[in-house]
């Protein structure tokens, strides 16, 4: 396992930022840490990087104890923060060389890795461009290249794609998939539900707790098994329709929401109840990770925390 934690907890005064998070991430995984701002993602990542001591519980990252071997962990991981820490007044090559030096790479190895990273970031021919002049998407690729110039076995990415356009985002995820195929383990935090689809494993964080874990397919399958199917239709008066069906949990309609010009409902069983079915032409849709997340948040109050394996 690249990451293993048991009951990882962190308090700040009376506030519990991370509450008994138990995780197991195999080597080579792309693990998505999904949750809204303030749900404890960054605090967990900082503990895993050995930057912040847990209040209780323990964990190992690439085989090292996070409470006692922080220094060893930091040499073997790469970390890319939301705010790309690049020097805007240095060139592309200078930024990479600076990071390679910081990680203590020797001369020959440094040249070799800087060259490889220029290839990875697709910046050949632009080595001498000043970083401040690059677009957001290109800066993101360079920031990733700097974070992994020392060829770490584990990579932490904290909300790496905020503000980047979708085409650049897709391209970024191809690079992440390449790194994972080469054997690196990647842990990415994000609050984009659609982005989570790029991960091989997911953990849903909310209020410091891990609500659920699994592959994107597993999480969706489990939602369908535990609740029901998702249907979509155009109805003339969506709001009127919403107000007519009752969502008290005892009926067959478990959730209903407006989706653009259509309405979506999550209903128990294989088919819709007759009164609802007759109202419109319903088509079944694949549940989204947002449906999964919303379901877990709504049903989490007071439940036992699950043990998670990715």
């Amino acid at each position, binding site marked *: 396992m690249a990451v293993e934690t048991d009951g990882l907890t962190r308090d700040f005064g009376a506030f519990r930022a991370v509450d008994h998070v138990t995780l197991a991430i195999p080597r080579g995984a792309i693990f998505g840490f999904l949750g809204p701002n303030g749900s404890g993602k960054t605090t967990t990542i900082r503990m895993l990087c050995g930057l912040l001591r847990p209040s209780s519980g323990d964990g190992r990252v690439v085989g090292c104890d996070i409470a006692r071997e922080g220094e060893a962990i930091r040499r073997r991981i790469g970390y890319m923060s939301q705010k790309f820490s690049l020097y805007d007044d240095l060139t592309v090559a200078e930024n990479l060389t600076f990071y390679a030096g910081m990680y203590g790479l020797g001369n020959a190895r440094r040249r070799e890795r800087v060259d490889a990273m220029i290839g990875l970031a697709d910046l050949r021919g632009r080595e001498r461009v000043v970083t401040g002049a690059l677009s957001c998407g290109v800066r993101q690729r360079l920031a990733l290249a700097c974070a992994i110039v020392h060829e770490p076995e584990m990579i932490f990415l904290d909300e790496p794609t905020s503000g980047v*356009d979708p085409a650049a985002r897709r391209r970024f995820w191809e690079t992440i998939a390449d790194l994972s195929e080469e054997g690196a383990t990647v842990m990415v935090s994000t609050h984009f539900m659609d982005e989570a689809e*790029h991960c091989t494993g997911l953990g849903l964080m909310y209020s410091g707790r891990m609500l659920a874990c699994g592959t994107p397919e597993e999480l969706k399958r489990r939602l369908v098994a535990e609740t029901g199917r998702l249907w979509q239709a155009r109805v003339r008066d969506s*709001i009127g329709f919403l107000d007519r069906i009752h969502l008290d949990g005892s009926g067959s309609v478990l959730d209903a929401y407006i989706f653009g010009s259509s309405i979506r409902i999550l209903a128990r069983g294989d088919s819709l109840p007759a009164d609802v079915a007759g109202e419109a032409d319903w088509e079944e849709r694949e549940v989204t990770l947002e449906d999964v997340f*919303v379901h877990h948040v709504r049903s989490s109050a007071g439940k036992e925390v699950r043990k998670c394996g990715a």
Partner: protein
Amino acid sequence: MIAARDVQKFYGDVHAIRGVSFDAERGTVFGIVGPDGAGKTTLLRMIVGVLSPSSGTVRVAFDGGDGEARRRMGYVAGKFSLYEDLSILENLSLFSRLYGMSENRAKARADELLDLTGLSPFGDRLAGRLSGGMRQKLAIAAAVLHEPELIVLDEPGTGVDPVSRRDIWGVLYRLNRKGVTIVVSTSYMDEAELCMRLIFLHEGRVLESGTPDEICGRFPYRILRARSETPGVRKSLVDFPCPGTSSFGHSVHVVVDGDDGDRRLREHLERAGIFDATVDAIPPTLEDVFVLLAGNGAHHS
């Protein structure tokens, strides 16, 4: 209700808006969709009337003439702009006085909006102590207190959790049903699907416009999702002739041209020694369309 014609905007040397035209009809939920830096906030500010185009026009037409146009619209900025040291009720009361509303009307309207947003139990809580989702709901309530015909929101879904985001969209749809036209910007492609009509903005230009269904319907290719327990699906597709591939966890989405794509993909995988792949067609998303258009239209330098 809103008509933009060949709008250009320069900030010094920066050409932020490069000839944008669109129409947003009364009663719609209209989305201005694009990544950071595409020009979304600039366009919203022009609609609200606090910024002028360098050339071109942005017109907002109300029923029965444009008198006091600004009083007939509401604006929710991207950054929370209410008073953090005032309570929810105090904030609404302050705004009602700014709008020149009578005390009775202000009280009735505040009750109605607190009920709509689900904030009724928290009237005395300081705005600074609200969660991101609750702040956003309060900002919306303040912006529609004076019953505007148009409400403009800059990225209302950014940084809020998915449950709050659903709630916020529920509030917007309910306002819309009462006749309020809604213009909203977003950088999230899944949020764009919640709009009735939208424009895709990229580097100051409109790449595409229409309803989400229309836009997805114009995607010229099919998308196949290939899944396999055998490793190497991605690598084997490097030399598969197709407009694009993207990795999604244990699956790869392959964009194919023509009706025989399924057969060609299966044969290609089999030649690479992958016999257990499941291949199914999936509908294109707005993100697929955007990626295709942004890839063709501009180079990311």
